[in-house]
């Protein structure tokens, strides 16, 4: 599978996880020991389970949140995506998240993802995230 096809599969997996809560497709694409460096949040998430819990937490904290991913470029085992989210408010009280702000959450972030042996092992993101604090 070329890197763009992999990226498109990842986007579908992320969408399914965010929109339905079904994380099975995404799980197949990520290494169990994946590390996400969420630079804008000053947060690192280590492990697939941590990433899954983050997505499920965000779904509960910001009901109706819908990611809009766009493939930018890729080469070898690296690809990059742009993520935009808007239109939903932070209203849910979820353990591990700050208290709800009631504000609309808007995200505009650049992602760089690295694969090893056909699985994502490391991801970096940075951008603007508003409404979560």
């Amino acid at each position, binding site marked *: 599978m070329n890197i763009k096809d992999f990226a498109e599969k990842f986007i579908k997996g992320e969408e399914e996880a965010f929109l339905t809560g079904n994380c099975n497709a995404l799980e197949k694409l990520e290494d169990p020991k994946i590390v996400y460096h969420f*630079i*804008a949040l000053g947060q690192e998430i280590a492990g697939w389970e941590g990433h899954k819990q983050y997505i499920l937490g965000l779904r509960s904290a910001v009901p109706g949140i819908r990611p809009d991913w766009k493939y*930018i*470029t*890729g*080469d*070898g*085992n*690296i690809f*990059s995506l*742009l993520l935009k989210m808007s239109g939903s408010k932070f209203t849910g009280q979820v353990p591990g998240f700050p208290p709800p702000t009631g504000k609309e959450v808007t995200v*505009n*972030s*650049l992602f*760089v993802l*690295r694969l090893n042996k056909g699985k994502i092992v*490391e991801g*970096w*993101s*940075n*951008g*603007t995230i508003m409404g979560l604090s």
Partner: protein
Amino acid sequence: MNIKDFAEKFIKAEDEAFQKGNFEPLKALEDPKVVYHMSSFGDLVGHEAHKQNVMSSHQLASDIKQEWKYLTGEGNLFALSYQARYISKGNIPGMPPAGKEASRDALFLLRVKHGKVVEVWNNGSWKGIDIEAVKNASKK
């Protein structure tokens, strides 16, 4: 040259341009038609526009300290993290009062073709700067 070596050369060239105003090493690494997709300011097209962007930052701030870090790379792509601290000159709406600090924290992705950087994407956050006000002031 492997992509990590190229990235390190790019970091040195950026530092040389920012700290000393010497753009020759950077010019040697960038395609004349390089496109910078700047999340805050839209697209910068061409090395000359990039050069002007760096130079204009010195008109807004002093004591610019920047730190680049290589994150990953393969083939013709590499990623860098970028942190910068500025002391505002307070001479444009949106910037903090003179003497106050502002900062930038960003992720850069760079694409190389025929040994030159041809396309760059960046995204990140600003602290202490009202970027919309700076953009509006820059247009006037």
